[in-house]
């Protein structure tokens, strides 16, 4: 299977697609799914993910969805033309995730609030971390920082209870 080998660096999977302007719900639906997958947008209608069994399958289903909505789509096995090109791609994706992790860390640190709201925030931010983690192919250092911030927020409540 392409890309399933953990040492098989350099294998990417691309989706090229074209969707009619209307209905816009189809366009928005596809766009949301691409965003959830954390794709690198290479050009209009061209997105990329590091290849593994899961990313390939997800892009194939999306290709089908595009076709079902009257568009055209093709899934490609691809290899960036050189390590430099791949590194730039990976860095851009890593930076996109870093921004998401920073947003989580900021929310964790600014959550003062009462006990109930704090617990809800912890739960929500942990869900957010899981979601980001699933589309995080090149984890940036911000990941550990965000986890720590949320863990600290969770622990701050136990602390208060213990000193009460």
């Amino acid at each position, binding site marked *: *299977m392409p890309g399933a080998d953990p040492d098989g660096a350099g294998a990417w999977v691309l989706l090229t697609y074209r969707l009619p302007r209307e209905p816009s719900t189809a366009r928005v*639906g596809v766009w949301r*799914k691409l965003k*959830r997958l954390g794709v690198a947008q290479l050009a209009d209608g061209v997105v990329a993910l590091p290849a593994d*069994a*899961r990313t390939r*399958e997800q892009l*194939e*289903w999306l*290709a*089908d*969805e595009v076709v*079902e909505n009257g568009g055209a789509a093709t899934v490609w096995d691809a290899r960036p033309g050189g390590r430099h090109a791949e590194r730039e791609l990976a860095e851009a994706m890593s930076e996109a995730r870093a921004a998401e992790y920073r947003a989580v860390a900021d929310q964790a640190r600014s959550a003062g609030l009462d006990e109930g709201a704090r617990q809800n925030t912890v739960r929500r931010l942990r869900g957010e971390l*899981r979601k980001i983690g*699933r589309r995080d192919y090149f984890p940036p250092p911000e990941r550990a920082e965000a986890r720590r911030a949320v863990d600290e927020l969770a622990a701050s409540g136990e602390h208060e209870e213990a000193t009460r």
Partner: protein
Amino acid sequence: MRWATRAHMHIDRVACAWLIRRVVDEDAEFVFVADPAEVPADATAFDMRGVELSHHGGDCSFETILRRYEITDPVLWRIAEIVHEADLDDERFDAPEAPGVDVVVRALGMVCDDVTLLSHTGPLFDGLYEYYRRATLLGREPS
């Protein structure tokens, strides 16, 4: 009857195979292929691009099979929510079990071939069915 799907199964395919055996064809025989062109002429393909029993209109293949065979069992539709979220993760349903079930199937897939994987996941889905059947009767989580 023979049924065909892509080799190296994940959650949607193992769940479909279980569902097919349970409610569509108890003597179902499964064939695993690397490429759609390898599907035997006498086999019904599922969870593959371009076939009827696959992803359609935002549904995963498990949901498509339930619809195609007009299966209304609420317990199977509850399991469908878990399979959908484990496979597509699009937050259409609230299924907190999904990531756990997905990890279990992925983990077994790392140490089993497809035939062995089905023999292990069969009891898992039988158990989930019983669990959600009791939950439906009780109106709360069974102990």
